């Protein structure tokens, strides 16, 4: 066997639907860097240098294949002028929705990224990450889909009612959100992000029916992914996508983040040679996994989706909870190194 590939080579090979030296993997431990630096979550996200250093340490420690510029999903709400609430032991969350009645959508305009301190910190983080890793590892930028961000903008219930009962205002909101999403994604790419992960849990059939997705979320995804100036992964954020995976292939997405609610092997069969899939370790259960359980879960995922490339092992949600111990993440890493080496000769005899 020749020298091992760099993280970037490994990921690019996998996304080209070929087998690299091993299965690439992404541990979205967005908050664990704070533990490495002995900081609170709030302190950690207050300076780009903290996040860069934290993620660099995790890159070396877990030996995974990505740097992530992700802070937390609610960061976009700060850019829109909304409230972000910090917790000691979990990801910051969006506060009260700032669209309190649907008629407010009429006057809504996309916020300017340069006016948001948090957005500027994220861009600086990505830029510093790129300086540190160069071409060794891909740097991932993150956006929330225009179709999913209204959950934070106006609340879940009000947004669902908008979808069903006020379609013209819904379309207007999508128009504004799409403008912001594309500019936010492109700003991250310009800062040095290699690719964009677009979180879109509302498109999953856990949240909206396929019929509604075809009328709304799919059209939004096609428009947005078509305009973003770099490869974009559509991530279901733990929602199921088995019923719409064929539709997602038409969006132009380079990758698809898959839930533990889905059968990874079935999704892989649908996406083989077309879209790279990421997933689908259960990020909630993993908090209590033993090293043996972690190894079994990794084996199962690789056996389901690893053959032929086009697969990145990751969790199902895109954010690993603060409560997941380092030992579990190290066990996942060890298992990928043990069972993820191509060719996956053991898979033929794997019985799960």
């Amino acid at each position, binding site marked *: 066997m020749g020298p091992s590939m760099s993280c970037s080579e490994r990921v690019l090979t996998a996304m080209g639907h070929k087998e690299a030296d091993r299965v690439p993997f992404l541990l979205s431990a967005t908050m664990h860097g704070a533990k490495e630096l002995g900081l609170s979550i709030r302190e950690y996200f207050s300076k780009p240098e903290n996040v860069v250093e934290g993620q660099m340490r995790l890159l070396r420690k877990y030996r995974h294949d990505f740097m992530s510029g992700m802070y937390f999903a609610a960061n976009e709400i700060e850019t829109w002028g909304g409230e972000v*609430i910090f*917790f000691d*032991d*979990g*990801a910051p*969350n*969006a*506060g*009260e*929705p700032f669209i309190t009645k649907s008629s407010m959508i009429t006057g809504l305009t996309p916020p300017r990224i340069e006016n948001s301190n948090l957005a500027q910190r994220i861009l600086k983080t990505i830029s510093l990450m790129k300086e540190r890793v160069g071409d060794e590892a891909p740097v991932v930028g993150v956006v929330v889909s225009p179709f999913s961000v209204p*959950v934070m903008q106006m*609340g*879940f*219930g009000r947004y*669902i*009612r908008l*979808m*069903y009962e006020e379609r013209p205002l819904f379309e207007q909101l999508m128009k504004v959100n799409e403008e912001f999403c594309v500019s936010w994604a492109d700003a991250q790419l310009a800062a040095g992000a290699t690719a964009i992960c677009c979180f879109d849990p509302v498109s999953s*059939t*856990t*949240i*909206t*029916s396929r019929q*509604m997705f075809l009328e709304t979320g799919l059209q939004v995804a096609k428009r947005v992914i078509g305009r973003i100036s770099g490869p974009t992964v559509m991530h279901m954020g*733990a929602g*199921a996508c*088995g*019923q719409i995976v064929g539709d997602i292939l038409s969006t132009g997405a380079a990758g698809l983040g898959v839930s*533990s*609610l889905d059968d990874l092997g079935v999704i892989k069969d649908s996406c083989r040679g077309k879209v790279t899939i990421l997933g689908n370790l*259960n*990020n*909630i*259960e993993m*908090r*209590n996994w033993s090293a043996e359980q972690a190894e079994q879960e990794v084996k199962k995922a690789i056996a389901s989706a690893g053959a032929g490339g086009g697969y990145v092992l990751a969790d199902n949600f895109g954010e690993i*909870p*603060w*409560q997941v111990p380092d030992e579990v993440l190290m066990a996942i890493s060890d298992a990928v190194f043990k069972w993820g080496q191509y060719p996956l000769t053991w898979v033929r005899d794997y019985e799960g």
Partner: protein
Amino acid sequence: MNELLNDFEQALLAVDAVAAREVFDRWGAENVRSEFLDQIIVPVLDKIGDGWAEGSVSLAQVYMSGRICEKLVDAMILRDPMPVRSHPRIAIVVLEDRHILGKTIVYSFLRSCGFSLLDYGCLGVDDTVKRAIDDKIEVLLVSTLMLPSALRVKDLRRQFDARDADVKIVVGGAPFRFDETLWKEVGAYAMGRTAFDAVSVFAGIEGGAS
């Protein structure tokens, strides 16, 4: 009867309030109107909830179905007396979170099924404990979206126990769905996968089950 059940289910899944009302009127032409609740609404909402748990129905459809039924029930109450249900004193709360959809769905479902319950909105642990004890709540339904909030149920249990308050905590929400042992870990009495599961819990308590 089966045709009415099927038509009502299809109307709700299509989020067609007019068609749902039409089924109600067809029922009322030949039956006691108030029995529409137990004979049609409850089984259909239960089936739709199961559909969501199995992945064939979306959360948006569950939510909109509940809204349509709630409006129908409100209209029924104006015309006819509704059956009075015997049940424990119930409250519902979103614990340390602002995502209220799960709570709204359960609240709407239970109201549509003829239960009365207090809605605490979004509260922290201390405020929830105080209000539940003041209101002599017997069953507290707790909705959570994120793992840290779900883990906070432990504190809730601890505080109730420290005050000798026999409040049964029934939990629901994404963290409990993705880790089916979590409800036991946090000291909950039961976990609800769908809104209808709460009804089974009430029945168990009324029947003296522990």
